[in-house]
């Protein structure tokens, strides 16, 4: 009988608010994983210039620059939707939550395209100069 309780996720029609919430949750979890790795990587600073530069050479390779475009999506979406949530929590914006979501997508999309293309530009620059795509 317990399984019959969960028909909501599979059968209820997904609307803007629920999609926004799911994406917020997924990007948040992705960011937790990323931040954990990032703090560990930056901590290699302590091990001296050599180790740091070696680590940086790996994580600034073209492969990672492309992965960072995905990371940028997570950061931008989570931040902007977070602002939308604050508008709902503190500024009574519930009735406008759908247009606000589109504002998040449009502004965020523009920022993502601008930032992402800069990153891809760096990657292509690196590839032109003979750097390997996979740094391993």
């Amino acid at each position, binding site marked *: 009988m317990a399984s019959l309780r969960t028909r909501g996720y599979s059968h209820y029609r997904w609307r803007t608010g629920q999609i926004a919430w799911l994406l917020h949750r997924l990007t948040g*979890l992705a960011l937790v994983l990323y931040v*954990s790795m990032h703090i560990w990587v930056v901590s290699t600073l*302590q091990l001296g210039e050599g180790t740091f530069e070696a680590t940086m050479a790996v994580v*600034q390779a073209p492969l990672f620059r492309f992965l960072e475009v995905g990371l940028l999506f997570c*950061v931008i979406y989570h*931040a902007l939707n*977070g602002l939308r949530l604050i508008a709902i929590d503190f500024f009574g914006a519930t009735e406008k939550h759908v247009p606000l979501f589109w504002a998040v997508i449009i502004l965020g999309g523009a920022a993502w395209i601008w930032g992402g293309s800069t990153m891809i530009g760096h990657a292509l620059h690196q590839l032109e100069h003979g750097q390997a795509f996979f740094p391993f």
Partner: protein
Amino acid sequence: MLKMLARTGTGSGGSNAWVLQRISGLLLVVALFLHYLFLHFLNGGDVTWNEVTTRLASPLFKTIDLIFLVSVLFHAGQGLVINIHDYIHRPAPRVILVSLAWLLMIVLLITGTVTIVTLEPGFLQEMQMGQAAGVIDAIQSQGVAL
């Protein structure tokens, strides 16, 4: 009335965490925007040893980065706890998972704090006295690349 007074400030139900999640979130929107601007877009896309150590030598930047670190780890940890509370209801697994989440955050906090704090201001003095030849070379080569 007395019951209400007894409860003020306890924040035991989750109200404090809720507010702090929003405050840390706002802080992070600003901090991450600047973080990306200075470390990814305005510096030609490459993060170097010199840049980071020069910046982290300053107590001002150490403080800013520490506040940034604490905000990120609180926001991340609280985010994990929100998810755990949403889906895990039996006390035993819930308490274990929540403890693991905060344990991870504490480990990351220690790692990050040590990194930020142990970069010595002596590095800055060496630069000023022009005695670290390797540093001058590095700066010059960076200048050439620019």
